[in-house]
């Protein structure tokens, strides 16, 4: 992966006004992945929307990283249940 395809961590931090330690804690909890190239740390652009969401939860709602981790699991469950419910609703249409 070339340098152009990833965003240096410090640029992310200055753009979103967040601390590097916050991103590193997210990585420790497996919520985001940091890529290492020599001594530099980078974020993949695909991870940026997720990072934005986590920073809203952390800075705006005062939810700590373990809380975000727990929320993430619950949100994933909600997403699956919503999808399942939509599929079942449409499957019911087939038999109606």
């Amino acid at each position, binding site marked *: 992966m070339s340098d152009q395809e990833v965003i240096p961590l410090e640029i992310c931090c200055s*753009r979103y006004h967040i601390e590097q330690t916050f991103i590193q804690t997210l990585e420790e909890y497996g919520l985001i992945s940091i890529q290492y190239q020599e001594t530099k740390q980078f974020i993949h652009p695909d991870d*940026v*929307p997720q990072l*934005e*969401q986590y920073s*809203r*939860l952390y*800075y*705006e*709602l*005062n*939810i700590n990283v373990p809380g975000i981790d727990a*929320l993430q699991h619950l*949100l994933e469950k*909600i*997403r699956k249940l*919503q*999808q399942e419910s*939509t*599929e079942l609703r*449409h*499957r019911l*249409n*087939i038999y109606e």
Partner: protein
Amino acid sequence: MAFTDYYKILEIPKNASAEDIKKAYRKLARKFHPDLNPKDKEANKKFQLINEANEVLSDPEKRKKYDQYGEDWAHADQFEKARQNQQHTSRQQSEDPFAGNFGGGEYSDFFEQLFGAGAGRRSTKFRGQDYQAELHLPLRDAAKAHQQTLTVNEKNIRITIPAGVEDAQVIKLKGHGAPGANGGASGDLYITFVITPDPVFKRSGNDLYTTINLELYIAVLGGEVTVDTLDGGKIKLKVKPETQNGTKTRLKGKGFPVYKQEGTSGDLYVTYNILIPQNLTQKQKELFSELSKLK
């Protein structure tokens, strides 16, 4: 335009302190925040109101105006004109990081009439909201890869829909959501496919089910029938003698295309519905009668 009771929205009394407002806002924001209520339009609406209430009540100057004119909002226009004449444009930002605008930037008519459009804007960059859209596709169209042009907020977006998309499947179009505020990135567009049922073929996963009528004589003596396939083709099927009503036959690989696996398809299950002859002639009745005696 109805009067909006911001105190009621934040569930606080009129004499609530700044600290009470902050606490009430944090509590409700955690409950209704869009990040925590995906696809919940009601929660999102409620959150906008909570945000708006906080925007007004956490700013001492706005709160003062709201307390003064809020109930009698019909006079807010005159107030607004007077305010503009005086070039009284103080739009102080609250120091409270919780008083943020959560990417929506949408305010009620009530808010805009009272404080002017744009009163809620802040200098922080916010990513635009994600849009959710549904795309209804007939089953037969979902079986073929094709291009489709969608119009989202007056912009045309051309997308290629691969064959085999599932009902309720969601695809993300990055950057096609609402524009960001203050230079923030645009949101994404999420498209949920809704596959409309077909009168002839029912789909379950990658398999298709269809029912064909079979004449009694073919069911009893055996023969051939022609089955239509989803892609418009025809297949000749041999029917065994003494085939029972409801018998199913599987046609391997004639079902629904598998998503992103070109050349692979599920199976087609054909169920026979045996038709009992009607309006029998005298001769036919006699022959059936004879048959019944041979039992």
